[in-house]
């Protein structure tokens, strides 16, 4: 069976261009150079139909960049993305358009991602009319049904985004994505900005939609308890690279990669009381200048000489489990 989504060696570099002063300094012989951020570095993974895959990692490790490439709103530097077995760059115009609708992204900040001058009716109804999912005459009804699906009353359709609460605005963002009948949702910190009690409402909504509409998710979050709650499988990233993937239960029971273990140790949990906190060991590296070899070696309690020179390959360590650590070479 081909996976619904397959990402292979996907890479994105951002070049931070020199400003005028920098260019002049360079002409005058300064060693100043353009800085390259390896935001995503040869990432490979798959998502099966109907699956919820959680993507986890520290801030700045490349999660959003990866998500945006999959959603087709950021061109990769290298590597391939295939949707239902067809690689993005080899799609016909028609296939490309269909994939662009089938993969929708939901963003963190429900306010910034909604046009403040458009009524909810337009925000949700515009795209489906253009793409022929409904007609101008049917639009009001179509929008109303979509709003009800995400728990918003259809009587609110004439309002503007600022007239809603944070949780309601996130529902509008979700309704806008659902209105084009997607198959795959990339949710980037989709509940991070919401209050705890509202987060629960939106998490429940995502789970209901999965069953009702047969959706597949890539769920990006830095909050491990949320990801654990809704994901079947997890992908762990560190400084641009995927370091481990495993089914959620197995990953929590028996993490393989030392970074995953460190991460699980740090997650605050309601039932972890009276902790004696410990300082982070080792330097915290910058994505601008990641350490050579295994990116995690300056902080890894098991680091060996080899780790400082050789990049560990992400490979299968058990059925359905991948990890990138030299310790697995025995």
């Amino acid at each position, binding site marked *: 069976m081909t996976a619904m989504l397959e990402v292979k060696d996907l890479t994105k570099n951002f070049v931070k261009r020199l400003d005028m002063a920098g260019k002049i300094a360079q002409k005058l012989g300064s060693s100043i150079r353009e800085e390259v951020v390896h935001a995503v570095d040869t990432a490979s993974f798959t998502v099966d139909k109907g699956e919820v895959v959680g993507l986890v990692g520290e801030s700045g490790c490349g999660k959003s960049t990866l998500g945006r490439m999959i959603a087709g709103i950021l061109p990769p530097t290298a590597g391939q993305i295939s949707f239902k077995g067809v690689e993005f760059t080899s799609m016909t115009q028609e296939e490309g358009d269909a994939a662009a609708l089938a993969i929708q992204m939901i963003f963190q900040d429900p306010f910034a991602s909604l046009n403040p001058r458009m009524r909810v009716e337009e925000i949700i109804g515009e795209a489906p009319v253009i793409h022929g999912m409904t007609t101008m005459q049917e639009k009001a009804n179509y929008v109303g049904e979509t709003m009800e699906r995400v728990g918003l009353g259809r009587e609110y359709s004439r309002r503007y985004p600022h007239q809603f609460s944070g949780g309601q605005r996130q529902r509008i963002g979700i309704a806008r994505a659902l209105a084009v009948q997607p198959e795959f949702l990339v949710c980037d910190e989709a509940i991070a900005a919401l209050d705890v009690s509202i987060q629960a409402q939106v998490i429940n909504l995502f789970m209901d939609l999965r069953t009702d509409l047969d959706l597949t998710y890539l769920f990006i979050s830095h909050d491990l*308890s949320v990801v654990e709650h809704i994901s079947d499988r997890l992908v762990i990233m560190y400084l641009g690279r995927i370091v481990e993937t495993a089914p959620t239960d197995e990953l929590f029971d028996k993490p393989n990669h030392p970074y995953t273990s460190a991460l699980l140790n*740090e997650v605050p949990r309601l039932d972890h009381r009276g902790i004696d906190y410990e300082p982070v060991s080792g330097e915290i590296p910058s994505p601008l200048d990641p350490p050579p070899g295994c990116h995690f070696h300056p902080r890894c309690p098991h680091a060996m000489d080899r780790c400082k020179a050789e990049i560990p390959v992400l490979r299968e360590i058990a059925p359905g489990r991948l990890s990138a650590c030299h310790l697995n070479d025995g």
Partner: protein
Amino acid sequence: MNDSQPTLSVQNLETHFFTKEGVAKAVNGVSFDIAKGEIMGLVGESGSGKSVTGFSIIGLVDPPGEVVGGKVLFNGEDLVQAGEERMRQLRGNRVAMIFQDPMMTLNPVLRVDTQMIETVLAHDKSVSKDEARQRSRDALGQVGIPSPDERLKAYPHQFSGGMRQRVAIAIALLNKPDVIIADEPTTALDVTIQGQILYEAQKLCRETGTALIWITHDLAVVAGLADRISVMYAGRVVEQGKLDDVLDHPVHPYTVGLLGSVPGHNTRGQRLFQIPGMTPSLLKLPPGCAFQERCPRVDGACEADPGITHPVDGRNVRCFHPHLEEAAQ
């Protein structure tokens, strides 16, 4: 000063905002005590009044806001009555606040070393400049800033958001104050950096006896750090008590709902409990209990203000029908 006296005692604090649309009672009769070395978690949804409580304690409420009632006793001295001169002496020195927005602490046009050295010298004039620099450097190292010597020479805009917050935290820790109010300081940080900050905060409380108020909407962080917890809703503390008591046996319907809605280890794939509705506007609060529109236990009695009901053993709650059966088990 005697030892049994709390470092900070907030009594019936009321802070109102006099806006065009009406009076918002952002802090509406808040009381709590914090002893030397104690850590209190102050939790609640956004808009419940956590930050304004913090601003009121350190005397930084600006118009249209005003502290209209209550006391803030710091080692017995009422800060509500203290003049601006006295507050300036105390702020950043004996009482410090770490703000949600680090730029409230940092001056954008001054280098980090200038700001930090000034903070040290303002507190203790007998310290030499070199010693002050050394202390500043160590403080940056403590909050996990790599290459602190170089970083000292930078301006705030040269740091990422997370690093700016760490610098602001370092400044708050510099003079080992008696009270620190930390307002969601780690919300934007990674869990590993957050662990580092929690380590430094805890060390300060244990070694120096600093009393700490940790404001957050993240109950899990409070669970690991705090000794006691106060839960705010619409300007009031609705439940307060020892950490384990409140987390294991919440009695206020809001606390019960809040805890039920947190995803945990054993809830995977299940529907989470959800509190219906949303936080009410402070301008349109119903008379009586502010939680009544969302409360599963509401009845006619709740149209009156519950006040503090059932005070037992350092624990109190504002509710006519608390979950006492469960707590008794």
